[in-house]
Protein backbone atom coordinates (compact mmCIF):
# COMPACT_ATOMS: atom_id res chain seq x y z
CA UNK A 1 0.00 0.00 0.00
CA UNK A 2 1.76 3.11 -1.18
CA UNK A 3 -0.52 5.55 0.62
CA UNK A 4 0.55 4.30 4.03
CA UNK A 5 2.65 7.08 5.53
CA UNK A 6 3.36 5.49 8.89
CA UNK A 7 3.00 1.96 10.12
CA UNK A 8 3.84 0.31 13.42
CA UNK A 9 4.47 -3.35 14.00
CA UNK A 10 3.77 -4.75 17.49
CA UNK A 11 5.07 -1.59 19.13
CA UNK A 12 5.71 -2.00 22.87
CA UNK A 13 6.99 0.28 25.57
CA UNK A 14 7.56 -0.67 29.20
CA UNK A 15 8.28 1.62 32.13
CA UNK A 16 9.77 -0.72 34.70
CA UNK A 17 7.06 -3.29 35.38
CA UNK A 18 4.34 -1.29 33.63
CA UNK A 19 3.64 -1.94 29.97
CA UNK A 20 2.28 1.41 28.80
CA UNK A 21 1.99 0.36 25.15
CA UNK A 22 1.62 -3.31 24.25
CA UNK A 23 1.87 -4.82 20.75
CA UNK A 24 0.28 -1.90 18.96
CA UNK A 25 0.12 -2.29 15.18
CA UNK A 26 -1.56 0.48 13.23
CA UNK A 27 -1.25 2.42 10.00
CA UNK A 28 -1.76 6.09 9.06
CA UNK A 29 -2.70 6.76 5.46
CA UNK A 30 -2.32 9.91 3.42
CA UNK A 31 -5.58 11.84 3.34
CA UNK A 32 -6.97 10.14 6.42
CA UNK A 33 -7.53 11.05 10.03
CA UNK A 34 -6.74 8.13 12.25
CA UNK A 35 -8.07 8.82 15.74
CA UNK A 36 -6.83 6.94 18.79
CA UNK A 37 -9.21 7.01 21.71
CA UNK A 38 -9.30 5.33 25.05
CA UNK A 39 -9.66 6.08 28.76
CA UNK A 40 -6.98 7.95 30.72
CA UNK A 41 -3.89 5.81 31.13
CA UNK A 42 -4.61 3.77 28.01
CA UNK A 43 -1.16 4.64 26.63
CA UNK A 44 -2.22 7.10 23.93
CA UNK A 45 0.30 9.80 24.75
CA UNK A 46 3.06 7.23 25.16
CA UNK A 47 2.18 5.97 21.70
CA UNK A 48 2.60 9.47 20.25
CA UNK A 49 5.91 9.87 22.06
CA UNK A 50 7.11 6.60 20.53
CA UNK A 51 6.06 7.66 17.03
CA UNK A 52 7.70 11.07 17.32
CA UNK A 53 10.98 9.66 18.62
CA UNK A 54 10.65 11.35 22.01
CA UNK A 55 10.76 7.87 23.56
CA UNK A 56 12.49 4.77 22.19
CA UNK A 57 10.27 1.67 22.03
CA UNK A 58 11.07 -1.40 24.12
CA UNK A 59 10.09 -3.69 21.25
CA UNK A 60 8.43 -3.56 17.86
CA UNK A 61 9.15 -1.45 14.81
CA UNK A 62 8.02 1.85 13.27
CA UNK A 63 8.08 2.40 9.51
CA UNK A 64 7.79 5.81 7.86
CA UNK A 65 6.91 4.96 4.29
CA UNK A 66 9.29 2.12 3.49
CA UNK A 67 11.92 3.26 5.95
CA UNK A 68 12.46 1.73 9.38
CA UNK A 69 12.67 4.68 11.78
CA UNK A 70 12.64 2.69 15.01
CA UNK A 71 14.96 4.27 17.56
CA UNK A 72 15.69 7.47 15.64
CA UNK A 73 15.94 10.66 17.70
CA UNK A 74 13.03 13.10 17.66
CA UNK A 75 14.84 15.63 15.47
CA UNK A 76 15.57 12.94 12.88
CA UNK A 77 11.96 11.79 12.86
CA UNK A 78 10.79 15.40 12.54
CA UNK A 79 13.16 15.90 9.59
CA UNK A 80 11.54 13.03 7.75
CA UNK A 81 8.20 14.80 7.78
CA UNK A 82 6.56 14.11 11.11
CA UNK A 83 5.11 17.15 12.84
CA UNK A 84 3.64 16.93 16.31
CA UNK A 85 1.68 18.98 18.78
CA UNK A 86 1.76 18.40 22.51
CA UNK A 87 -1.01 17.66 24.96
CA UNK A 88 0.48 20.20 27.34
CA UNK A 89 1.14 23.38 25.40
CA UNK A 90 4.80 23.40 24.41
CA UNK A 91 5.72 26.60 22.60
CA UNK A 92 8.33 29.36 22.82
CA UNK A 93 6.54 31.59 25.32
CA UNK A 94 8.76 34.70 25.16
CA UNK A 95 8.67 34.83 21.35
CA UNK A 96 5.97 36.29 19.12
CA UNK A 97 3.42 34.08 17.40
CA UNK A 98 5.14 34.80 14.11
CA UNK A 99 8.60 33.94 15.46
CA UNK A 100 7.29 30.65 16.86
CA UNK A 101 6.03 29.71 13.41
CA UNK A 102 9.07 31.14 11.62
CA UNK A 103 11.40 29.07 13.79
CA UNK A 104 9.37 25.99 12.87
CA UNK A 105 9.37 26.89 9.17
CA UNK A 106 13.13 27.47 9.27
CA UNK A 107 13.66 23.71 9.56
CA UNK A 108 12.69 23.44 5.90
CA UNK A 109 16.09 24.85 4.92
CA UNK A 110 17.90 21.63 5.78
CA UNK A 111 20.28 23.26 8.23
CA UNK A 112 20.55 26.60 9.98
CA UNK A 113 24.32 27.00 10.07
CA UNK A 114 23.88 30.38 8.40
CA UNK A 115 25.55 33.11 10.36
CA UNK A 116 25.27 36.39 8.48
CA UNK A 117 22.12 36.82 6.45
CA UNK A 118 19.29 38.30 8.49
CA UNK A 119 16.80 35.65 9.57
CA UNK A 120 13.82 37.75 8.50
CA UNK A 121 15.15 38.13 4.95
CA UNK A 122 14.22 34.59 3.88
CA UNK A 123 10.98 35.38 2.06
CA UNK A 124 9.92 31.77 1.57
CA UNK A 125 10.33 31.04 5.30
CA UNK A 126 8.32 34.12 6.29
CA UNK A 127 5.64 33.13 3.80
CA UNK A 128 5.51 29.59 5.20
CA UNK A 129 5.13 30.97 8.72
CA UNK A 130 2.36 33.33 7.62
CA UNK A 131 0.66 30.50 5.79
CA UNK A 132 0.73 28.27 8.88
CA UNK A 133 -0.71 31.07 11.02
CA UNK A 134 -3.51 31.63 8.55
CA UNK A 135 -4.23 27.90 8.34
CA UNK A 136 -4.46 27.62 12.13
CA UNK A 137 -6.67 30.70 12.41
CA UNK A 138 -4.13 33.09 13.95
CA UNK A 139 -4.55 35.96 11.48
CA UNK A 140 -3.73 39.29 13.07
CA UNK A 141 -1.92 37.73 16.03
CA UNK A 142 1.55 37.64 14.40
CA UNK A 143 3.25 40.09 16.73
CA UNK A 144 1.60 39.01 19.95
CA UNK A 145 3.98 37.39 22.43
CA UNK A 146 3.00 33.72 22.72
CA UNK A 147 2.81 33.86 26.53
CA UNK A 148 0.01 36.42 26.31
CA UNK A 149 -2.14 34.44 23.85
CA UNK A 150 -5.33 32.88 25.19
CA UNK A 151 -5.24 29.17 25.96
CA UNK A 152 -7.18 28.38 22.80
CA UNK A 153 -4.83 30.48 20.68
CA UNK A 154 -1.83 28.73 22.21
CA UNK A 155 -3.37 25.42 21.14
CA UNK A 156 -3.82 26.83 17.66
CA UNK A 157 -0.20 27.96 17.68
CA UNK A 158 0.83 24.39 18.53
CA UNK A 159 -0.86 23.22 15.36
CA UNK A 160 0.50 26.14 13.32
CA UNK A 161 4.04 25.24 14.37
CA UNK A 162 3.55 21.62 13.43
CA UNK A 163 2.19 22.73 10.04
CA UNK A 164 5.00 25.21 9.42
CA UNK A 165 7.55 22.38 9.27
CA UNK A 166 5.57 21.04 6.27
CA UNK A 167 5.09 17.49 7.57
CA UNK A 168 3.49 14.55 5.76
CA UNK A 169 2.27 13.11 9.03
CA UNK A 170 0.75 15.16 11.84
CA UNK A 171 0.71 13.70 15.34
CA UNK A 172 -1.86 15.72 17.29
CA UNK A 173 -2.01 14.94 21.00
CA UNK A 174 -5.34 16.27 22.29
CA UNK A 175 -5.45 19.46 20.22
CA UNK A 176 -8.84 20.35 21.73
CA UNK A 177 -7.75 20.00 25.38
CA UNK A 178 -9.20 22.86 27.41
CA UNK A 179 -10.86 24.55 24.46
CA UNK A 180 -14.29 26.16 24.45
CA UNK A 181 -17.07 25.13 22.08
CA UNK A 182 -16.46 27.72 19.37
CA UNK A 183 -12.71 27.20 19.43
CA UNK A 184 -13.17 23.43 19.25
CA UNK A 185 -15.50 23.73 16.28
CA UNK A 186 -12.94 25.84 14.45
CA UNK A 187 -10.14 23.35 15.08
CA UNK A 188 -12.35 20.43 14.02
CA UNK A 189 -13.03 22.25 10.77
CA UNK A 190 -9.32 22.92 10.39
CA UNK A 191 -8.49 19.24 10.92
CA UNK A 192 -10.96 18.22 8.22
CA UNK A 193 -9.20 20.52 5.78
CA UNK A 194 -5.72 19.37 6.77
CA UNK A 195 -6.63 15.74 6.19
CA UNK A 196 -6.74 16.39 2.45
CA UNK A 197 -2.97 16.70 2.16
CA UNK A 198 -1.63 15.08 5.32
CA UNK A 199 -1.83 11.85 7.19
CA UNK A 200 -3.11 12.66 10.68
CA UNK A 201 -2.92 10.67 13.87
CA UNK A 202 -5.28 12.29 16.34
CA UNK A 203 -5.52 11.63 20.05
CA UNK A 204 -8.65 13.19 21.46
CA UNK A 205 -11.06 12.92 24.36
CA UNK A 206 -13.87 14.91 22.77
CA UNK A 207 -15.98 12.09 21.31
CA UNK A 208 -18.26 14.38 19.26
CA UNK A 209 -15.18 15.79 17.55
CA UNK A 210 -13.60 12.39 17.03
CA UNK A 211 -16.65 10.84 15.43
CA UNK A 212 -17.12 13.97 13.32
CA UNK A 213 -13.67 13.94 11.70
CA UNK A 214 -12.07 10.51 12.02
CA UNK A 215 -11.84 8.14 9.06
CA UNK A 216 -10.37 5.34 11.15
CA UNK A 217 -10.67 4.81 14.88
CA UNK A 218 -8.44 2.76 17.13
CA UNK A 219 -9.55 2.12 20.69
CA UNK A 220 -6.83 1.51 23.24
CA UNK A 221 -7.34 0.08 26.70
CA UNK A 222 -4.51 -0.64 29.15
CA UNK A 223 -1.86 -0.09 26.49
CA UNK A 224 -3.27 -2.53 23.95
CA UNK A 225 -5.51 -2.10 20.92
CA UNK A 226 -9.02 -3.22 21.76
CA UNK A 227 -10.57 -2.60 18.40
CA UNK A 228 -9.78 -0.75 15.20
CA UNK A 229 -12.05 0.18 12.30
CA UNK A 230 -14.43 2.72 10.81
CA UNK A 231 -16.37 5.04 13.17
CA UNK A 232 -19.56 3.09 12.45
CA UNK A 233 -18.03 -0.26 13.33
CA UNK A 234 -16.49 1.18 16.51
CA UNK A 235 -19.76 2.77 17.51
CA UNK A 236 -21.58 -0.53 17.13
CA UNK A 237 -18.83 -2.68 18.64
CA UNK A 238 -20.01 -4.45 21.71
CA UNK A 239 -16.54 -4.77 23.18
CA UNK A 240 -15.88 -1.05 22.86
CA UNK A 241 -19.19 -0.14 24.43
CA UNK A 242 -18.46 -2.44 27.33
CA UNK A 243 -14.95 -1.26 27.89
CA UNK A 244 -15.19 2.39 27.21
CA UNK A 245 -18.15 4.10 25.68
CA UNK A 246 -21.04 2.27 27.26
CA UNK A 247 -20.24 2.81 30.88
CA UNK A 248 -20.44 6.60 30.88
CA UNK A 249 -22.92 6.77 28.02
CA UNK A 250 -20.93 9.27 25.95
CA UNK A 251 -22.09 7.74 22.70
CA UNK A 252 -24.14 4.74 23.70
Amino acid at each position, binding site marked *: MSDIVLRTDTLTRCFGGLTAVRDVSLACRFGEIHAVIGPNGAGKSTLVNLLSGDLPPSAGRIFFGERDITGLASH*QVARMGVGRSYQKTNIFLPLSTF*ENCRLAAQTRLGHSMRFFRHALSFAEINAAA*DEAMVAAGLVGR*ADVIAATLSHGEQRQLEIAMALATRPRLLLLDEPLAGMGGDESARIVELLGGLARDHAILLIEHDMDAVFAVADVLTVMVNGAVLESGSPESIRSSHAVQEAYLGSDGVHG
Partner: protein
Amino acid sequence: MNAQLSGMERPGRSGLAPAASAALLVILVVAMAVLPLTPLGADKFTIQLLTRIMIMAILAMSLDLAMGVCGLVSFGHAAFFGLAGYVLALVAPQGEAAGFWTSIAMAMAATAVLALVMGALVLRTTGVYFIMVTLALAQMLYFLFHDTKLAGGSDGIYIYVRPDATLFGFRPFDLDNVQHLYYVVLVALSLSYLLLRRVLSSLFGKVMSGIRINESRMQSLGYATFRYKLVCFMLSGTFAGLAGYFAAVQFGVVNPDMLGWHLSGSAMMMVILGGMGTLWGAVIGAAAMILAEMGFQALPAVTINGSEFNLGKHWQLWMGSFIVLVALYLPQGLGGALSALWRALFARKAAPRP
Protein backbone atom coordinates in the same frame (compact mmCIF):
# COMPACT_ATOMS: atom_id res chain seq x y z
CA MET B 1 0.44 34.21 0.63
CA ASN B 2 -0.90 36.90 2.89
CA ALA B 3 0.46 40.23 1.79
CA GLN B 4 -0.87 42.02 4.84
CA LEU B 5 0.91 39.72 7.23
CA SER B 6 4.14 39.54 5.26
CA GLY B 7 4.35 43.28 4.87
CA MET B 8 3.83 43.92 8.55
CA GLU B 9 6.55 45.62 10.46
CA ARG B 10 8.11 43.27 12.93
CA PRO B 11 9.72 44.85 15.95
CA GLY B 12 13.23 43.77 16.84
CA ARG B 13 14.13 42.11 20.08
CA SER B 14 16.21 44.82 21.70
CA GLY B 15 13.27 47.10 22.40
CA LEU B 16 15.13 50.11 21.03
CA ALA B 17 14.42 51.22 17.50
CA PRO B 18 17.28 49.94 15.31
CA ALA B 19 18.15 53.46 14.11
CA ALA B 20 18.28 54.84 17.64
CA SER B 21 20.48 52.03 18.95
CA ALA B 22 22.79 52.28 15.93
CA ALA B 23 23.13 56.03 16.52
CA LEU B 24 23.85 55.44 20.19
CA LEU B 25 26.52 52.90 19.30
CA VAL B 26 28.23 55.25 16.84
CA ILE B 27 28.21 58.07 19.41
CA LEU B 28 29.74 55.79 22.05
CA VAL B 29 32.49 54.50 19.77
CA VAL B 30 33.32 58.00 18.54
CA ALA B 31 33.45 59.22 22.14
CA MET B 32 35.80 56.37 23.02
CA ALA B 33 37.91 57.13 19.95
CA VAL B 34 38.40 60.83 20.73
CA LEU B 35 38.91 60.28 24.46
CA PRO B 36 42.70 59.78 24.31
CA LEU B 37 42.97 63.18 22.58
CA THR B 38 41.22 65.01 25.44
CA PRO B 39 42.84 66.12 28.72
CA LEU B 40 40.87 63.39 30.54
CA GLY B 41 42.41 60.75 28.33
CA ALA B 42 45.91 62.19 28.48
CA ASP B 43 46.51 60.20 31.63
CA LYS B 44 48.19 56.88 30.92
CA PHE B 45 46.40 55.21 33.82
CA THR B 46 42.96 56.09 32.43
CA ILE B 47 43.85 54.70 29.02
CA GLN B 48 45.15 51.46 30.53
CA LEU B 49 42.07 51.13 32.73
CA LEU B 50 39.74 51.61 29.78
CA THR B 51 41.76 49.10 27.76
CA ARG B 52 41.38 46.57 30.58
CA ILE B 53 37.64 47.23 30.76
CA MET B 54 37.27 46.70 27.01
CA ILE B 55 39.24 43.43 27.18
CA MET B 56 37.00 42.16 29.97
CA ALA B 57 33.99 43.36 27.97
CA ILE B 58 35.02 41.05 25.10
CA LEU B 59 35.28 38.17 27.59
CA ALA B 60 31.88 38.99 29.16
CA MET B 61 30.30 39.32 25.71
CA SER B 62 31.66 35.94 24.66
CA LEU B 63 30.19 34.37 27.79
CA ASP B 64 26.89 36.14 27.17
CA LEU B 65 26.72 34.49 23.75
CA ALA B 66 26.85 31.05 25.40
CA MET B 67 24.96 31.84 28.61
CA GLY B 68 22.54 34.65 27.84
CA VAL B 69 21.71 33.71 24.26
CA CYS B 70 21.96 29.93 24.10
CA GLY B 71 21.43 29.08 27.79
CA LEU B 72 24.83 27.38 28.18
CA VAL B 73 25.88 28.50 31.66
CA SER B 74 29.62 27.96 31.35
CA PHE B 75 31.64 28.24 34.53
CA GLY B 76 34.86 27.53 32.67
CA HIS B 77 35.35 30.42 30.28
CA ALA B 78 38.63 31.36 31.94
CA ALA B 79 40.08 28.26 30.27
CA PHE B 80 39.75 29.91 26.85
CA PHE B 81 40.87 33.29 28.11
CA GLY B 82 43.96 31.84 29.78
CA LEU B 83 44.86 29.38 27.03
CA ALA B 84 45.03 32.20 24.46
CA GLY B 85 47.40 34.09 26.75
CA TYR B 86 49.59 31.03 27.15
CA VAL B 87 49.64 30.46 23.39
CA LEU B 88 51.04 33.98 22.91
CA ALA B 89 53.62 33.43 25.65
CA LEU B 90 54.70 30.07 24.25
CA VAL B 91 54.95 31.05 20.58
CA ALA B 92 56.96 34.20 21.31
CA PRO B 93 60.65 33.53 20.67
CA GLN B 94 62.85 34.04 23.76
CA GLY B 95 63.44 37.76 24.17
CA GLU B 96 61.97 38.63 20.79
CA ALA B 97 58.60 39.83 19.58
CA ALA B 98 56.04 37.34 18.29
CA GLY B 99 54.29 38.25 15.07
CA PHE B 100 50.98 39.87 16.03
CA TRP B 101 48.90 38.54 13.14
CA THR B 102 50.16 34.96 13.34
CA SER B 103 50.08 34.77 17.12
CA ILE B 104 46.55 36.15 17.42
CA ALA B 105 45.37 33.69 14.78
CA MET B 106 47.12 30.82 16.58
CA ALA B 107 45.68 31.86 19.96
CA MET B 108 42.15 32.00 18.58
CA ALA B 109 42.56 28.74 16.66
CA ALA B 110 43.84 27.01 19.80
CA THR B 111 40.89 28.22 21.86
CA ALA B 112 38.48 27.16 19.11
CA VAL B 113 39.95 23.66 19.24
CA LEU B 114 39.82 23.61 23.05
CA ALA B 115 36.18 24.76 22.95
CA LEU B 116 35.37 22.08 20.38
CA VAL B 117 36.87 19.32 22.51
CA MET B 118 35.49 20.68 25.77
CA GLY B 119 32.08 21.32 24.19
CA ALA B 120 31.88 17.81 22.76
CA LEU B 121 32.20 16.52 26.33
CA VAL B 122 30.29 19.05 28.41
CA LEU B 123 27.34 19.56 26.05
CA ARG B 124 26.21 16.03 26.83
CA THR B 125 25.16 17.38 30.21
CA THR B 126 22.63 20.07 31.06
CA GLY B 127 21.65 22.30 33.94
CA VAL B 128 23.71 22.25 37.09
CA TYR B 129 25.81 19.36 35.76
CA PHE B 130 26.85 21.50 32.80
CA ILE B 131 28.00 24.24 35.18
CA MET B 132 30.01 21.78 37.25
CA VAL B 133 31.60 19.95 34.31
CA THR B 134 32.72 23.16 32.61
CA LEU B 135 34.21 24.24 35.93
CA ALA B 136 35.94 20.89 36.39
CA LEU B 137 37.52 20.87 32.92
CA ALA B 138 38.72 24.46 33.26
CA GLN B 139 40.26 23.66 36.66
CA MET B 140 42.05 20.68 35.09
CA LEU B 141 43.68 23.07 32.65
CA TYR B 142 44.50 25.41 35.52
CA PHE B 143 46.31 22.66 37.41
CA LEU B 144 48.03 21.48 34.25
CA PHE B 145 49.73 24.87 33.94
CA HIS B 146 50.03 25.40 37.70
CA ASP B 147 51.65 22.09 38.63
CA THR B 148 53.88 21.38 35.65
CA LYS B 149 56.95 23.13 34.33
CA LEU B 150 55.21 23.45 30.96
CA ALA B 151 55.02 27.24 31.12
CA GLY B 152 56.64 28.53 34.25
CA GLY B 153 54.40 26.68 36.71
CA SER B 154 52.60 28.76 39.29
CA ASP B 155 54.72 31.84 38.50
CA GLY B 156 53.67 31.97 34.87
CA ILE B 157 55.76 33.45 32.05
CA TYR B 158 56.67 36.99 31.17
CA ILE B 159 56.16 38.27 27.67
CA TYR B 160 59.14 40.60 27.59
CA VAL B 161 58.49 41.99 24.14
CA ARG B 162 54.98 42.75 22.91
CA PRO B 163 53.91 41.27 19.55
CA ASP B 164 55.02 43.08 16.42
CA ALA B 165 52.23 44.02 14.01
CA THR B 166 54.43 44.42 10.94
CA LEU B 167 52.62 43.23 7.85
CA PHE B 168 54.39 43.25 4.44
CA GLY B 169 56.99 45.68 5.73
CA PHE B 170 54.39 48.10 7.10
CA ARG B 171 53.79 48.52 10.83
CA PRO B 172 50.25 49.85 11.35
CA PHE B 173 50.51 50.16 15.13
CA ASP B 174 52.88 49.61 18.01
CA LEU B 175 51.47 47.56 20.89
CA ASP B 176 54.08 48.99 23.29
CA ASN B 177 52.30 52.30 22.93
CA VAL B 178 49.39 52.33 25.40
CA GLN B 179 47.29 54.55 23.15
CA HIS B 180 47.85 52.25 20.17
CA LEU B 181 46.87 49.23 22.25
CA TYR B 182 43.79 51.13 23.39
CA TYR B 183 42.72 51.76 19.81
CA VAL B 184 43.44 48.19 18.71
CA VAL B 185 41.31 46.83 21.58
CA LEU B 186 38.58 49.37 20.83
CA VAL B 187 38.48 48.14 17.23
CA ALA B 188 38.50 44.50 18.39
CA LEU B 189 35.60 45.13 20.79
CA SER B 190 33.57 47.05 18.20
CA LEU B 191 34.12 44.46 15.48
CA SER B 192 33.35 41.58 17.86
CA TYR B 193 30.15 43.27 18.92
CA LEU B 194 29.02 43.98 15.36
CA LEU B 195 29.90 40.48 14.19
CA LEU B 196 28.16 38.71 17.10
CA ARG B 197 25.17 41.04 16.84
CA ARG B 198 24.90 40.03 13.20
CA VAL B 199 25.09 36.35 14.16
CA LEU B 200 22.29 36.88 16.71
CA SER B 201 19.92 38.08 14.02
CA SER B 202 20.85 35.25 11.62
CA LEU B 203 19.12 31.91 11.29
CA PHE B 204 21.81 30.45 13.54
CA GLY B 205 21.11 33.14 16.15
CA LYS B 206 17.40 32.31 16.14
CA VAL B 207 18.23 28.65 16.72
CA MET B 208 20.43 29.60 19.69
CA SER B 209 17.59 31.56 21.29
CA GLY B 210 15.17 28.74 20.61
CA ILE B 211 17.48 26.30 22.37
CA ARG B 212 17.70 28.55 25.42
CA ILE B 213 13.93 28.92 25.62
CA ASN B 214 12.83 25.34 24.94
CA GLU B 215 15.42 22.87 23.73
CA SER B 216 13.19 19.81 23.57
CA ARG B 217 10.69 21.69 21.40
CA MET B 218 13.53 22.62 19.05
CA GLN B 219 14.35 18.93 18.74
CA SER B 220 10.78 17.99 17.97
CA LEU B 221 10.74 20.67 15.28
CA GLY B 222 13.72 18.92 13.68
CA TYR B 223 16.80 20.72 15.01
CA ALA B 224 19.82 18.63 15.93
CA THR B 225 20.43 20.91 18.91
CA PHE B 226 23.75 19.37 19.97
CA ARG B 227 25.46 20.61 16.79
CA TYR B 228 24.19 24.15 17.22
CA LYS B 229 25.21 24.25 20.86
CA LEU B 230 28.67 22.99 19.92
CA VAL B 231 29.14 25.70 17.28
CA CYS B 232 27.87 28.31 19.74
CA PHE B 233 30.29 27.07 22.39
CA MET B 234 33.18 27.22 19.91
CA LEU B 235 32.28 30.71 18.77
CA SER B 236 31.98 31.82 22.38
CA GLY B 237 35.28 30.20 23.38
CA THR B 238 37.10 31.77 20.45
CA PHE B 239 36.05 35.27 21.45
CA ALA B 240 37.03 34.56 25.06
CA GLY B 241 40.39 33.64 23.55
CA LEU B 242 40.57 36.97 21.74
CA ALA B 243 40.08 38.71 25.09
CA GLY B 244 42.73 36.54 26.74
CA TYR B 245 45.23 37.31 23.99
CA PHE B 246 44.87 41.05 24.53
CA ALA B 247 45.02 40.62 28.30
CA ALA B 248 48.38 38.86 27.90
CA VAL B 249 49.57 41.63 25.57
CA GLN B 250 48.52 44.35 27.99
CA PHE B 251 49.95 42.87 31.18
CA GLY B 252 53.04 41.34 29.60
CA VAL B 253 52.67 38.25 31.76
CA VAL B 254 50.54 35.14 31.85
CA ASN B 255 49.99 32.99 34.92
CA PRO B 256 47.60 30.20 35.96
CA ASP B 257 45.20 32.69 37.54
CA MET B 258 44.13 33.59 34.01
CA LEU B 259 42.66 30.07 33.82
CA GLY B 260 41.16 29.93 37.29
CA TRP B 261 37.55 29.66 38.39
CA HIS B 262 37.78 33.05 40.02
CA LEU B 263 37.99 34.69 36.63
CA SER B 264 35.20 32.50 35.23
CA GLY B 265 33.05 33.66 38.13
CA SER B 266 33.91 37.31 37.54
CA ALA B 267 32.95 37.01 33.88
CA MET B 268 29.67 35.43 34.91
CA MET B 269 28.97 38.23 37.37
CA MET B 270 29.70 40.84 34.70
CA VAL B 271 27.11 39.23 32.44
CA ILE B 272 24.51 39.03 35.20
CA LEU B 273 25.25 42.57 36.38
CA GLY B 274 24.84 43.97 32.86
CA GLY B 275 21.87 41.84 31.85
CA MET B 276 21.88 38.67 29.77
CA GLY B 277 21.30 38.03 26.11
CA THR B 278 21.90 41.45 24.58
CA LEU B 279 25.74 41.46 24.25
CA TRP B 280 25.88 45.19 25.02
CA GLY B 281 24.59 44.41 28.51
CA ALA B 282 27.73 42.35 29.06
CA VAL B 283 29.87 45.33 28.01
CA ILE B 284 28.08 47.53 30.54
CA GLY B 285 28.44 44.80 33.16
CA ALA B 286 32.19 44.56 32.61
CA ALA B 287 32.61 48.31 32.94
CA ALA B 288 30.32 48.51 35.98
CA MET B 289 32.06 45.70 37.78
CA ILE B 290 35.60 46.97 37.25
CA LEU B 291 34.69 50.56 38.10
CA ALA B 292 32.64 49.54 41.15
CA GLU B 293 35.54 47.40 42.36
CA MET B 294 37.90 50.38 42.06
CA GLY B 295 35.40 52.71 43.67
CA PHE B 296 34.89 50.46 46.67
CA GLN B 297 38.63 49.90 47.05
CA ALA B 298 39.15 53.65 47.19
CA LEU B 299 36.77 54.08 50.13
CA PRO B 300 38.43 55.73 53.14
CA ALA B 301 38.98 54.45 56.63
CA VAL B 302 36.38 55.66 59.10
CA THR B 303 36.29 55.74 62.85
CA ILE B 304 33.24 54.16 64.42
CA ASN B 305 32.89 54.33 68.23
CA GLY B 306 36.55 55.04 68.55
CA SER B 307 37.78 52.04 66.52
CA GLU B 308 39.03 52.42 62.99
CA PHE B 309 37.38 50.55 60.18
CA ASN B 310 38.89 50.60 56.70
CA LEU B 311 35.98 50.62 54.25
CA GLY B 312 38.24 50.26 51.19
CA LYS B 313 40.08 47.27 52.57
CA HIS B 314 36.79 45.42 52.93
CA TRP B 315 35.62 46.37 49.45
CA GLN B 316 34.31 42.85 48.76
CA LEU B 317 31.60 43.47 51.34
CA TRP B 318 30.29 46.45 49.33
CA MET B 319 30.83 44.71 46.02
CA GLY B 320 28.79 41.73 47.19
CA SER B 321 25.98 43.98 48.40
CA PHE B 322 26.00 45.83 45.09
CA ILE B 323 25.62 42.58 43.12
CA VAL B 324 22.89 41.31 45.42
CA LEU B 325 20.96 44.56 45.08
CA VAL B 326 21.22 44.52 41.28
CA ALA B 327 20.14 40.88 41.14
CA LEU B 328 17.17 41.58 43.41
CA TYR B 329 15.89 44.83 41.99
CA LEU B 330 17.12 44.84 38.39
CA PRO B 331 16.40 41.35 37.04
CA GLN B 332 17.35 42.53 33.54
CA GLY B 333 20.61 43.92 34.91
CA LEU B 334 21.99 47.43 34.53
CA GLY B 335 21.56 47.18 30.77
CA GLY B 336 17.89 46.34 31.13
CA ALA B 337 17.43 49.27 33.49
CA LEU B 338 19.16 51.60 31.03
CA SER B 339 17.03 50.52 28.10
CA ALA B 340 13.86 50.88 30.21
CA LEU B 341 15.01 54.39 31.08
CA TRP B 342 15.75 55.10 27.42
CA ARG B 343 12.28 53.94 26.40
CA ALA B 344 10.64 56.01 29.12
CA LEU B 345 12.52 59.13 28.01
CA PHE B 346 12.54 58.92 24.23
CA ALA B 347 10.26 56.22 22.89
CA ARG B 348 6.97 57.27 24.40
CA LYS B 349 5.43 57.78 21.01
CA ALA B 350 6.32 54.30 19.76
CA ALA B 351 3.52 51.76 19.51
CA PRO B 352 2.98 49.94 22.80
CA ARG B 353 4.50 46.48 22.83
CA PRO B 354 2.28 43.64 24.06
